[in-house]
């Protein structure tokens, strides 16, 4: 199996995730789409590691996972906090920072 198949799949998933970020209005779903994009890039890292024959790509993918876990914790805490004060999980609502 040629690793370019995995790269194409990861590009497809990345594009779908980007579409989700742009289209959806629910903050949690937008956040999950960002996670999907991170996972797609991880798949590309793993496939490139195999293509080049060294493990550096896998190590980078591992660090991406750690950073993504930290990001999820803080991001979801922010979403919960905004929901508490505005009673809404829509990303159109928090416009206080606009002015």
């Amino acid at each position, binding site marked *: *199996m040629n690793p370019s*198949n995995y790269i194409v799949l990861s590009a497809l998933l990345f594009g779908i995730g980007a579409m989700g970020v742009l289209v959806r209005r629910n903050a949690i779903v937008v956040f999950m789409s960002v996670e999907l994009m991170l996972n797609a890039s991880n798949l590309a890292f793993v496939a490139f590691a195999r293509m080049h024959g060294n493990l550096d790509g*896998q190590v980078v993918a*591992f660090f991406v996972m750690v950073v993504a876990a930290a990001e*999820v914790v*803080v991001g979801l*805490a922010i979403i*919960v906090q905004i929901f508490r004060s505005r009673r809404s999980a829509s990303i*159109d609502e928090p416009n206080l920072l606009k002015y």
Partner: protein
Amino acid sequence: MIIDTPTNSGEAIVFWVCAVLSVLGAFGLITSRKAVHSALWMALTMISLAVLYIANAAPFLGMVQVIVYTGAVMMLFLFVIMVVGVDASDSLIETIKGQRWTAILLGLALILILVWGLGSSLAGIPAAGLELANREDGGNVPGIAHLIFTDYLVVFEVTSALLITAALGAMVLAHREHWKPKPTQEELSKARFLGTEHPGNRPNPGIYARHNAVDTPALLPDGSPTELSIPGPLRARGDVAPVDIKDVHAIEEADSL
């Protein structure tokens, strides 16, 4: 350098099954109306990706994917959906005109460019394979450990600082301060009776209806069902039992006898 076998039929089957499942999950994630369904589709994508990692000579990352993503991160998402509410579905009102269609168009263009560009430029390149790199340290996990604790040691240490910062940040953000003093009983009572809502109890589910199940709406004196009698989460999920108009007529006839 060991070259991958050009056609490995077992891996091809795994790839095509998991590729279809992951793309299906991704589409389900962005098209589901309810956030809970999106999260479950997301879990499908994550598990398929874990299988693909393992098929890609990365068993350690596959396991980490299952434990960290489908285990911890998706649970966190589901908990937050529980806190924010099951009815937090998307509004369909566009704040920017034509944003949805522009976004879909641009997303498709991005997919097209990435797939076409990467696919055509990488198509003929043979893979070096990881057998040699894995054998060097006696396996995939020792190989990754060797890299993390030598070349990437500084990054690894910075990562631990990041995790502690994230944990503290989440604790600070989740901590709730009382901005106003707690309302007294007198204030609560005034708010209840001077407000716009009916101050009394709501009707119980099943009153004057044929069933007394919790999803059966109570019937008003004119026979029409009232959704006020159904608990909020059931209403949000759309789990309200339909009221048969024949039952209403039967009750009316029984009353008139």
